[in-house]
């Protein structure tokens, strides 16, 4: 499930600075909201698991 950060004060489904899930945006044209600068997709952080040579 994608998440989006609210970038503008005009977005009615969340306050500026909040992160909203795509489920909340059902019925919204997410592409248009991103293009207009109201939302920005939050990229998922990939946790790195480092395996040392000794552990192998």
């Amino acid at each position, binding site marked *: 499930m994608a998440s989006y950060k609210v970038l503008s004060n005009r977005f*009615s489904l969340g306050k500026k600075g909040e992160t909203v899930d795509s489920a909340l945006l059902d019925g919204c044209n997410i592409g248009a909201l991103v293009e207009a600068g109201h939302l920005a997709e939050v990229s998922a952080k990939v946790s790195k698991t480092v395996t040392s040579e000794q552990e192998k």
Partner: protein
Amino acid sequence: MAQIVLKDASISIGGVELADRSNSVEVNYEIESVEVTAFGGNRSFVGGLQNNTCTVELMQDFAATETEATIFPLVGTQVTLVFKPTSDAVGADNPSYTISGAYLSSHTPIAAAVGELAMTSLTFTGGTLVKATS
């Protein structure tokens, strides 16, 4: 119940509040009439499909997240519209009218005579209107 003068209408287009860029709004809720007149009777009709139309006048603004940036990507798509008589919470005296699947076919990015305020008139057609009072 008191009369109401529209001073603080709430207008949400595709999840974006644009009331402070608008000076006119009209929501037309219509259910088409389908004639079921039979021989031996008079004209008679039953309700058919919803045929809603909404017109919103917006002051043009080319800044980020304002009128142009919000409306331009919506042309040719279906959007959800939410209208209220005032910006207060939804209630019996301040119902909300939500139209899902309203289609925007055109937008006029530049339209005004010399010396006039640049406006765009948007007409949304179709969709399903639901009224809520709570």
